[in-house]
């Protein structure tokens, strides 16, 4: 029998609001996606100049991971190879694909092209935190908490993954949504890692 897995932290960035574990940390409803993300970044007091060169998708995912992981003691308990990142979205990197392709007529921009893969944000999170465990990026028409429970649960049951960032990060134009879960193959008084709890957190409901 597999051990119980728990959601030990969550972060939701959506509709101009940034929340960690259900607590509102930042809110702003003016400006475009990029401006909102930069303002949230500044508000959180993070200092990571590479943030500015990221595309909107990586900015959103990276910022959500930064907030998710802040002051989480569980990070220190595991080796880099035991910490996995498994994400999904609906629009892959289409937001920056359009922006990259506009540069092709003049001079194709390698700085934009590098972001034309959705798993680049996994790389950005890994570089920041030194995580070297399992990677996976999957595309769905909508957030599929059932798949996350199955897939991440399987990684943890295999014994090689102890901690996992999983969830959904999607940007297209002015539409964006990030919900990340920090899942540990341990824990007791926290939230059980299952489809129902992920769906609740994703849609902003209280557990």
């Amino acid at each position, binding site marked *: 029998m597999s051990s119980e897995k728990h959601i030990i932290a969550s972060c939701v960035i959506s509709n101009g609001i940034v929340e960690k574990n259900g607590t509102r940390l930042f809110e702003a409803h003016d400006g475009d996606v990029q401006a909102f993300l930069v303002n949230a970044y500044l508000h959180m007091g993070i200092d990571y100049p590479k943030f500015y060169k990221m595309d909107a998708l990586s900015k959103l995912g990276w910022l959500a991971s930064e907030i998710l992981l802040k002051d989480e003691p569980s990070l220190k308990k595991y080796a880099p190879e035991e910490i996995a990142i498994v994400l999904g979205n609906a629009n892959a990197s289409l937001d920056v694909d359009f922006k990259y392709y506009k540069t092709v007529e003049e001079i194709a921009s390698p700085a934009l092209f*590098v972001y034309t893969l959705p798993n680049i944000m996994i790389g950005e999170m890994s570089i920041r935190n030194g995580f070297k465990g399992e990677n996976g*990026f999957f595309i769905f028409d909508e957030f599929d908490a059932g798949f996350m429970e*199955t897939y991440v649960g399987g990684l943890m049951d295999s014994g090689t993954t102890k901690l996992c960032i999983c969830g959904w990060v999607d940007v297209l134009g002015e539409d964006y949504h990030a919900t990340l879960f920090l899942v540990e193959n341990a824990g007791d008084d926290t939230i059980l890692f299952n489809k129902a709890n992920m769906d609740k957190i994703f849609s902003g409901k209280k557990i």
Partner: protein
Amino acid sequence: MKEVFIIADNIISPLGFSTAENFQQLKQSVSGVQLHEDKKIADEPFYASLFPAGCELFMGDKYTHFEQLLIASIEATLSSANLDITSKNTILIISSTKGNISLIETEENNEALRKRVALHTSAQLVADHFHFANKPLIVSNACISGLLGIVTGMRLIQSGIYENAVVVGADVITKFVMSGFQSFQAVSAEPCKPFDADRTGINLGEGAATIILSSNKQDAKSIKVTGGATGNDANHISGPSRTGMELSHVLQKAVKEAGIQNADVDFISAHGTATMYNDEMESKAITIAGMEHTPVNSLKGYYGHTLGAAGLIESIITLQQMKENLVIPTKGFQQLGVTKPVNVAANTIIQKNLKHCLKIASGFGGCNGAVVFSKAE
């Protein structure tokens, strides 16, 4: 944990429309990489392995070229497998890096286009074409996508969630992809030379491939998927690790899961893109694992880099090599040009009993992947 068998496969590439045709071409050292002049893709002539212009795969305009490749490859694979794909026990896994991205080159950016480009739209069309009962799963994880598709299928079968997984991958080379790799100065001005001292970068390639995995062995000779792992360099988003430690860790994890020792691996199918950094990193990763004497090849000289299909195409060729107990040489390789002296298969076909084989891949975002294939006892 359930065992996972490979029960059928197919490659559709410029070299042929079946695994057998493709393997025959490789044995005769035929490459799909040619000089192309096509202003729709690039202003200057370029080397790549492309389907001939106007190569429509039978299905009219309901499906894009990308979707036609997926459908044609799945169809060819199903014809040789005894499988009920309409059952809830079978999952379709689709792997691609850029899918229908070519549409944004010519179509207006509106809601209909954005929906049509989405990989889940293509996946659903393909699933509906074959009447798969389950929603398809889509992997898009840069150049390890095909390999991650196999590993994901293996895991879902091992844990008993599905009995069968139809894993298909494809990518199409158009201006979007070509201009991007050119902007990185990663495209070679000549046929690529994996692991060679004079290597100057990649050739791109088109193709599709399918592997059907099952917990039900179809015959005594079925090859198994016995291990798989992925990981991240945590180093750079567009360049590989300097040390190869991370890929080495991933491939050793896959070998360990297969229940064998590093020394038991009889052959390694490398990513071998023929960029300076990739091949160097792979040679280090292989050497750290103590596998520097194990024969290794790269198939990029035959197919170019087929992106989301690469992990599948190269795995299927590996399976074929296992069936015939031989190693296909690395086309384009002449003189070793990596600092660690790995055993690159060169010039002629080597006869070797292959029981356990390792396929590795790495990609943008710092991702690494590995899978182990083993002959059933």
